[in-house]
């Protein structure tokens, strides 16, 4: 049974990607990013934190593809190693807020009542803050370590998942198949977690993909203003921040390459969103 499912899923995925080349490109991009993140230590040609001052501020060359920074570190190697950190932060944060937010939201959307009202007001309060400032405040209060950046990013993403899951579950909760599941012996909680949530997943996947890009920017933004990962750890935000000082003297490569990495990662995940929905929705299969 599962073997048939897997092959039909693959065929369906291939069909969607063929009809939608932009998604295919985005999917390839995301795959490359993931591979780079996993294989970073083996891919990087130089040690990303070993400084080599005589070689400082070299423009891109055959030896140093993306040039070197003010301490003579290879920018290309730093970019590659930074991929791992940035993606880890973004993926973990999005996964955490999805896991928590969608379950809370789905329960609220299904049950309604006091819980729904209380959670709704909490979300309103959370969203009344400028979210980036909220993240800054949390990292400043908790201390700027990687896990705190993840927590802050997860929390500011939470309201979107709660609201989204709530709305999607709410419109489905009175459908026949939901009641049918209850008649088949499922409890309310099982109906929410095993029936409604998987059905709203395709719609949530779009949100997750968009959010992933946003979380990368958020993490980089925190580092940029000095509240994120501490130097000398390679991270795209820090690299942009450090490189910004040299822009006026024409050392463009210090900012351009990490900036480009950031942009392409965000773009990839944004473009991936739409295609993902088509792939995950069983109704799109014929």
């Amino acid at each position: 049974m599962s073997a048939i499912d897997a092959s039909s899923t693959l065929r369906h995925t291939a069909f969607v990607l063929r009809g939608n080349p932009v998604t295919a490109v985005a999917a390839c991009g995301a795959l490359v990013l993931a591979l780079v993140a996993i294989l970073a230590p083996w891919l990087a040609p130089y040690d990303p934190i070993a400084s080599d001052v005589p070689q400082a501020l070299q423009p891109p060359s055959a030896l140093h593809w993306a040039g070197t920074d003010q301490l003579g570190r290879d920018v290309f190697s730093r970019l590659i190693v930074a991929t791992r950190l940035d993606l880890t932060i973004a993926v973990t944060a999005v996964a955490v807020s999805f896991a928590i937010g969608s379950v809370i939201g789905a329960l609220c959307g299904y049950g309604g009542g006091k819980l729904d009202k209380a959670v709704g007001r909490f979300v309103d309060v959370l969203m009344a803050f400028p979210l980036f400032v909220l993240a800054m405040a949390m990292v400043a209060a908790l201390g700027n370590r990687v896990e705190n950046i993840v927590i802050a990013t997860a929390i500011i993403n939470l309201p979107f998942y709660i609201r989204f899951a709530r709305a999607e579950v709410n419109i489905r909760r009175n459908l026949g198949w939901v009641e049918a599941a209850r008649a088949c012996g499922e409890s309310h909680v099982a109906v929410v977690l095993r029936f409604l949530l998987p059905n709203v997943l395709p719609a949530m996947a779009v949100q997750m993909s968009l959010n992933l890009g946003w979380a990368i920017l958020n993490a980089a933004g925190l580092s940029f203003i000095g509240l994120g990962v501490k130097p000398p750890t390679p991270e795209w935000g820090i690299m942009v921040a450090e490189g910004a000082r040299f822009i006026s003297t024409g050392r463009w490569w210090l900012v351009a390459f990490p900036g480009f990495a950031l942009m392409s990662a965000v773009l990839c995940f944004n473009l991936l969103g739409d295609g993902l929905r088509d792939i995950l929705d069983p109704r799109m299969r014929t």
Partner: protein
Amino acid sequence: MTAPLLEVEDLKVTFSTRRGLVEAVRGVTLSLQPGEMLGLVGESGSGKSVTGFAITHLLDKAGRIAGGRIRFRGQDITGAGSADLRQLHGAAMAMIFQNPRAALNPIRAIGEQIADAILAHRRISRPEARDEALKLLRAVQIRDPEQRVKAYPHELSGGMCQRVMIAIAISCNPQLLIADEPTTGLDVTTQKVVMDLLADIAAARGMAAILITHDLGLAARYCRRVVVMEQGSLVEEAEPLTLFHRPQHPYTKRLVAASPTATSRVEDLVPDGERVPLVQVSALSLPPHGTPLLLDVKQIAKRFDDGTTGVADFSMTMRHGESIGLVGESGSGKSTISRMICRLIDPSAGEILFDGRAIGQIPARDFHRSEFRKDIQIVFQDPNESLNPRYTAFDCIAHPLLRLLGLRSGDRLRRQVEDCADRVGLPRELLSRFPHQLSGGQKARVGIARAIACKPRLLVLDEPTAALDVSVQAVVLQLLNRLRREDNLGFLFVSHDLNVVRMMCDRTIVLRAGQIVEQGESRALFANPQTDYTRELVDAVPHIQRAELALA
């Protein structure tokens, strides 16, 4: 004979879809005299609505008139441009849609919407148009038109909204009205009022009309001539009387046979040649004296959180293997009662005894753990919505077996699921499909298979055929009837279709606003209703026999 108002010649309409061009209408020819009402009857996918849309040039982008001519008042409008169409729409031909609430703009008062339609075609001032709108509201017999003119669509009932749609459609005195399933989704009594109104207005103003419907009885009642369509082609055209008594085409025969009438029995629902003899069941052995009733409902009530009363003081009993009908219009509480009995929601008061044991005390949230869960199962109204989109047909049927009988996946489960599929006549190769890959009738079968998988003793059927075509309904009703006889199932059959209830149920309970109006043995109840309300319900059902009387 005067010149026809509308002539359609060999009309062909194609749609471009993911799988290439699809021919929705394949050469339809029909003509309509001024002031005539023509019935266009067919099942879903027959192309009847597409024909209507093609005549009014309201096909969506994917659809295209691929051939044929449409002549209106002698003028060829097949390739009419948008300027000509603006002149035609509203002023010369108007359309009434299936779902009036969706066809009206929700954020604009109905008086303004009628005035908009008038102003689109006539050079008068807005106050004059408003006066005109008021007159139209009177013409469609809306009570207190002075107040209602300022009402918004959500403040009106479905029947009222459809009257407003009729007012808009007739606002510029068109010569042709096209009504696409104008009363589908309305209660029978409302349906009768709306259709009477539509017929009266068309007759009084000399408008020709095309009534597009899936309901043969409705077409027979209001039209002098009925055209039957199947798969994009016109199969038969005749007067209603001829159509019902001497149908020529095999499809019409099937359709006529499948349309339940006041006297038909479940086994009559297929044409003579295709009848399968019913399973002969040895006379149901009466349970020994003293066996408790299968179901004994004592004065249950449901009050909702907002203080409204859904059901008040409802009692009923059911013996083993008995079939009881629950009829009533929307809002009568019949769905609420069926869900309370099915223990999906809790009653606010009263007692439910199942096989002598009080099951009303078990809260609905815990009932899934009860030993009785597998004994009380339910078949839902809309087969499109009653199957989990992420489950294959196999998973759907296996679900109760896994949860309620504790089966594990494996050969035994597969065998049981296949047995269920066989019993409901679902081909085994369809078991691996997802719901959206199945037809309405196939989905209905999966829903029934799921409900009978655990061999329940009481089956609640919540309008099980309301969303199905008559020919599919006929097959599903026969299937349900057979299953009941084979398993000695108790049926609680919830429906608004009196003819179906009469065929399927031993006894019937008539509900109104959450209270029992009347109950009794089905045939006697419908033949000789004791209360005005039941009589009104019975009279509102479009019967073919009545059509005969009207024409005689």
